[in-house]
């Protein structure tokens, strides 16, 4: 188990299975609004469903409409449970706030891997390593 500390963008307490992207994410155009599936060709998460996961990525990119796109995903039940960034950008930050999605940034995201069980409480991020649990 690893304990990481970040900076709170949107306060909250939740937990879930991590989905980690090494590349930036735009919620506008890159994620299908009706399914929550990543549809950007060439993106490392192409084909993945982000709904209900703790979504971990370095930072956001793209149009400011992305804040609204995240909101729409949340209303349809396809938003991530929580968002963890290396460095938050205004578009994703505003999207998380308006969608009530707990969000933390300034976290060493190299410590988190897809499949890890991640708990978030305020600025605390607890990572239960998938590999360790099997041992």
């Amino acid at each position, binding site marked *: 188990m690893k304990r990481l500390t970040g900076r709170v963008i949107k306060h909250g307490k939740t937990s879930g299975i991590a989905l980690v992207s090494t590349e930036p994410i735009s919620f506008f155009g890159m994620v299908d609004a009706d399914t929550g599936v990543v549809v950007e060709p060439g993106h490392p998460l192409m084909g993945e469903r982000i709904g209900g996961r703790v979504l971990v990525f370095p930072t956001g990119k793209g149009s*400011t409409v992305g804040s*609204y796109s995240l909101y729409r995903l949340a*209303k349809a039940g396809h938003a991530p449970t929580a968002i963890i960034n290396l460095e938050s950008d*205004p*578009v994703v*930050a*505003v999207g998380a706030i308006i969608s009530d999605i707990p969000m933390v940034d300034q976290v060493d995201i190299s410590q988190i891997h897809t499949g890890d069980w991640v708990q978030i409480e305020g600025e605390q991020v607890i990572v239960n390593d998938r590999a360790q649990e099997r041992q």
Partner: protein
Amino acid sequence: MKLTPYEQSLLEGAEGRGVQKAMEIVVALGHIFGAQDLVEIRSAQVAGVSYKNLGEAGLEFLSDWAAQGARVRVPTTLNPAGLDLHNWHQLGFDAEFAAKQQRVLEAFAAMGIPPSCTCTPYLVGNAPARGEHLAWAESSAVSFANSVLGARTNREGGPSALAAAIVGRTARYGLHLDANRRAQLVVEVRCPVRSLSDFGALGILVGQQARNRVPYLRGLDATHLLARPAGLDLLKTLGAAMAASGAVALYHVEGVTPESDEPSIIVPGAEHIAITDLKAGYQALNRGGEPAIDLVWFGCPHASLAELETIVRLLNGRPCKVPLWVTMARALRDEAARNGLLQRFEALGGRVVADTCLVVAPMQGLGFQCMATPCAKGAYYAPAHSGVAVHFSSPEACVEAAITGSWVAEAGEEVGE
């Protein structure tokens, strides 16, 4: 970040969920950008108005926020909508789109924002004074407010400008602080820059080099730019172009803009570049090819009354062969109707299109293939956003194209990629 007890109470929900959400946005952005505190704003300009850009997601959000009791507490103006709110049917826009657009405007109205629908709020009553703090979205308006009026705003996004309007405050960082208003790039202009399109081409070139830095321009004819009202239209297009090809939110012009003569306005060690020719700027914007054009567009950013007068003067009584559209604020269109300018223009086949612009309107449905425009920002965005090929040249050449229906390349003008 330091909040006053009142600001803290809003953050804790003292005035309801809608206001609380707005305060959360403002405070979070303050954290991200390292602000020490908040600053009260004089006005807001909200972008993200066209249904084409907002989509169902944005419409839902705005309606929900309004229902949660969000109301603006400073004068707030809106960016262009996706169509002319009165003449959309006549212009060929889709009824379903019009209904969705109307719902967006109803949500804004519920928050206390009238449908001003223009990218030039400073021409229709939202004209800030020097030193006033604002929360404006719309990159060309941000540039004009900071550079020409000496007011202070960052490049806000749609939701963040709206959040700031709801709490009457924005985080104090970036261009709200003196230190960040100094120029990091000095541009020596060593070629003649006269027409509206010249200033647009120059802006495209400077924006490419400046990226998000503050440029200081030398070598421009101050008398030309200080002429009123004509000089304001040149500065408007210059700033809009720099904000399109770069992320320039503030520029200074020696002897012209209000902060250009402040001591140490240029940071020590600023990079110096020279521009000796505008050709590359014109080439970057000429995405046409076909000599046959089916539209001529003026008014990006939205036209002033002086610009409409110039177009009527250039037409000189000759009728248009292809549609000549001038996009402008409805308030100015109505003023032109009162003084007879609109009737003189429309008698020659011209069309004033209010409330919208060709970049945020669903142009694909109207069937235009190739247009001419002297507006650099419009020329920059139209191919990708509106799916039309573009010829970019002087207002004179564009008016001639409207009269003849075909494009005649000027001497030395080459088509870009």
